[in-house]
């Protein structure tokens, strides 16, 4: 699941170099701002995301001397900072999921190539139960699940970001996925597009 290793290395290098020349911190920002912003936006929406990402980078700057390159690259380290800041906005996140759970999107609005429509219809149809499921997960389970599903962090990176053992990552992910599947009806919905309709 590891992605962007080159970018990650460049970001790590920039983070370390910024200890001597703070202006090189801009390189770290350019490497990772989009990923962090997207993840924060997904979880808490636009305005709070902007605040949290700004806070994350400023925290990273002030803490850059404590960053240990032998432990992990900069990317999971940054996601770890962001995750801790997200924890303070759990009400905003819950409200966001509740709003999506209440919404009733019209599958007819889905358009595109025929071979994509079925999958898209399914995705739209399961939004409400997915939102409910995410809102009902424990914070720890949700962090693991969403870092993997939405940020493409590897298990090792999630372990580093959340400062938890690898085994805990696996158990939290399994538990979270089980609950999500249960919320979707206990079956694989992609096998039957009608299951949620």
């Amino acid at each position, binding site marked *: 699941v590891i992605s962007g290793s080159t970018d990650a290395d460049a970001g790590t290098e920039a983070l370390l170099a910024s*200890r*001597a020349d703070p202006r090189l*911190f801009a390189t770290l920002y350019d490497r990772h701002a989009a990923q962090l912003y997207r993840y924060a936006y*997904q979880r808490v929406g636009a305005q709070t995301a902007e605040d949290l990402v700004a806070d994350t980078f400023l925290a990273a700057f002030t803490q850059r001397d404590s960053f240990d390159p032998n432990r992990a690259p900069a990317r999971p380290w940054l996601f770890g900072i962001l995750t801790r800041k997200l924890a303070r906005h759990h009400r905003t996140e819950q409200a966001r999921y509740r709003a999506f759970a209440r919404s009733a999107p019209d599958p007819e609005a889905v358009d595109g190539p025929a071979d994509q429509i079925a999958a898209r219809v399914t*995705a739209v149809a399961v939004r409400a139960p997915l939102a409910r499921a995410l809102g009902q997960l424990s914070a720890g389970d949700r962090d693991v699940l969403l870092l993997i599903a*939405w940020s493409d962090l590897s298990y090792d990176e999630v372990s580093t970001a959340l400062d938890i053992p690898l085994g805990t990552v696996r158990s939290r992910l399994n538990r979270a996925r089980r609950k999500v599947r249960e919320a979707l009806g206990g079956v694989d919905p992609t096998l039957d597009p009608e299951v949620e309709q």
Partner: protein
Amino acid sequence: MNSDLDLLKQFGADLGPPTEHVPEALRRRVLDQPALREPALRQRGLRELRLREPAPGQPRLSRPSRIRRRISSGARWVGAIRPSWRLTGVAATALVLAAVTAVALVGPPVRARRPIAGPSAGSIGGSTGGPSTAAQTPTQLLRLAAARVAVAPEPTVRPNQFVYLQSVAVYQDIYLDGGWSARGIPTLVREWRSVDGTHDGLIRRRPLNAPNATWVTETTPGCRGGTLSGAGRTACTPAPGYAGGLPTTGDAMYGYLYRPGTDDLPMQYAAQISADERAFERAASALSLGQTSPAVQAAVFAALSMVPGVTVSNGVTDVSGRPGVALVHKGPDRTTQLIFDPDTYQYLGMTQTLAELLSVDKAPDIALRLVTQQAFEQVSIVNRVGELP
């Protein structure tokens, strides 16, 4: 396979921003912080200006371009005493030339600030007060400065205490093209150095004339058990913040100032600096690092009396706007001033002008001057990091 994760990814895409574009306001909000636009400030006193070779894989530029690149692409101060801070293996990528530059040449001086203060009168480099004889020669100036510190008691410090230093500095990049230069922002710097070098220190900075601005805080890791605090297995040697482990006799200090080595400066650049220039710059570093120790300061003054080519300049002003008398060493491409109070001969700070780099590249149409200034306002010993005297 992974169907639930696939659906979750699709749901995440629906929840995500409409475009991959990150708001420009966010970028400005992060990167317009003053601390992120300045060269590094890990100042334990005057740090020598270092040039670095291009990183492996970077194209080697023509000589004029190389100079331009060095000036424009980055800056850093390198710890003259604390090798543990250098982290050369990881910081060597894009760092080229460091400059803490002053506005004294391009703008009005910073408003005059109070004289440097010690924790208690005379306890750490404190003034002995009273009028003094005007110094006309380097020998006179050094004798007066030495006489001042000779009566100051050596303070008693504990290993777990911190040296508190308050100073004013101005950061600025100067670009060669067209002689353009940008004014730096006078910055108030508060630094806590671990007395024995094993405790985490702290640096706080904010624009001098913005009392309500947020302090930018930077932790300076201590060296414990041979490794740098919070930096994994980075090896280090503790660098005491008190007196910096510097010599306390004139002869020993002279040997320290003229010690072999280029202080990490690449040889081709180091060769442009004479031994006397390097000794004078090292003296400035030692004076800064040894501000808490009258013995170290006296040793520096004694050693400086043996450095040739030193003159006195009256009527100078430090970056805080305080009048001073300066001990000056002028080399081929740099002039360094050690500024003293004209009445008490207390060491106030330094100014260094790096000039005539154009002669290195034989490009007479390019005007360049980089000025470094630092003015010390307060020195003290405190019990805890972050504690103000």
